């Protein structure tokens, strides 16, 4: 059975018509299943574990990056595939990177059921699929205990990328794949102080483990959750089965 987990923000009246369209499409395509709605009192891990015990065939997240992150954290140790129906064009970078269309159009991807295994990033004890990001100001980075990276320019951002978010243009042709068991450490800074010609500069490292320290700024994972440093980032031992679209970026 397909289990559809709706995020709590979808209880707002403005999403009624979107959900109706999604549900109609699901019925038309014969993808019917049970709907679980998240709420303040409901524990996500409990919902996911119960549905797995009851024999769920697929768990489909209906929501945004935050919803996907929450459910992925609950599902990382199980073999059941995760599907995504992104609602709204904002905060849905995970679905975009996986080549999944928005709202009712995502049902085509669910129906095609193209399942792949992807790496899962781990920031302390929290999983992420897309990236972990922090501002460069006051950030120090230690890699594999062999060397440290000091960022001389305090502007810009450091990202540890598992799945390349849309809109990020890398300075060189490099294949960022969530299937290569490697994370990309990407540091963006402004190289010149000339206000008329602020050239952006980049650093790029391929890593397996990194320790991020910052006394004042948090690490943001999957555009949704903040974690207070020090944060050790690596890859989870388990991979996640996920339904992807044809137009994914890897």
């Amino acid at each position: 059975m397909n289990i559809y987990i709706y995020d709590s923000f979808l209880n707002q009246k403005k999403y009624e018509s979107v959900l109706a369209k999604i549900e109609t499409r699901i019925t038309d395509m014969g993808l019917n299943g049970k709907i679980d709605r998240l709420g303040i009192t409901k524990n996500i891990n409990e919902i996911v574990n119960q549905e797995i015990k009851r024999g769920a065939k697929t768990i489909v997240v209906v929501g945004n990056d935050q919803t996907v992150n929450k459910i992925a954290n609950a599902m990382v140790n199980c073999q059941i595939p995760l599907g995504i129906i992104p609602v709204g064009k904002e905060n849905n970078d995970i679905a975009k990177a996986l080549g999944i269309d928005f709202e009712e159009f995502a049902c085509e991807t669910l129906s095609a059921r193209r399942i792949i295994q992807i790496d899962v990033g781990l920031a302390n004890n929290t999983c992420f699929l897309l990236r972990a990001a922090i501002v460069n100001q006051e950030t120090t980075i230690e890699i594999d205990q062999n060397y440290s990276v000091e960022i001389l320019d305090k502007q810009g951002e450091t990202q540890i990328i598992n799945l390349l978010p849309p809109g990020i243009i890398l300075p060189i042709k490099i294949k960022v794949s969530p299937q290569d068991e490697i994370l990309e450490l990407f540091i963006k800074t402004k190289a010149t102080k000339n206000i008329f010609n602020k050239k952006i500069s980049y650093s790029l490292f391929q890593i397996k483990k990194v320790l991020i320290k910052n006394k004042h700024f948090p690490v943001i994972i999957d555009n949704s959750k903040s974690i207070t440093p020090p944060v050790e980032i690596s890859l989870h031992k388990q991979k996640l089965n996920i339904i992807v679209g044809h137009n994914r970026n890897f």
Partner: protein
Amino acid sequence: MFSKQEQKADFKEVETIIGPSVKIKGDFHGTNNIIVEGVVDGSLKTSGNLRISDKAKITANVEAKDAKISGEVKGNIKIRGYLEITALAKIFGDIEVLSLSIERGAIINGKCTMLVSGEEIKKQQK
């Protein structure tokens, strides 16, 4: 003889870039092609190719397959293949290399030793 095109280090597949606003402290050992535009303090070693750009400052022993140096290097350099030193390069240390080109204007303070490949040793022995 190799043509000039063949002698150039191949940087089509770069997997590490040390950008101009970044300082690396410690032993950086890689297996891929590396571009250095920033500061490195410690040691820098790769089994791939290395490019040190004109703004880079390296205080480290350097080892790579092929390399192109345009920046400042304080430390010994060991290149198993071809080393291209451009006019902007400043090298303070010994160089060990198999094949070398130095552009007019480059500053080199140190001993330069040419490594001889196994095939060439055999030829000399004959």
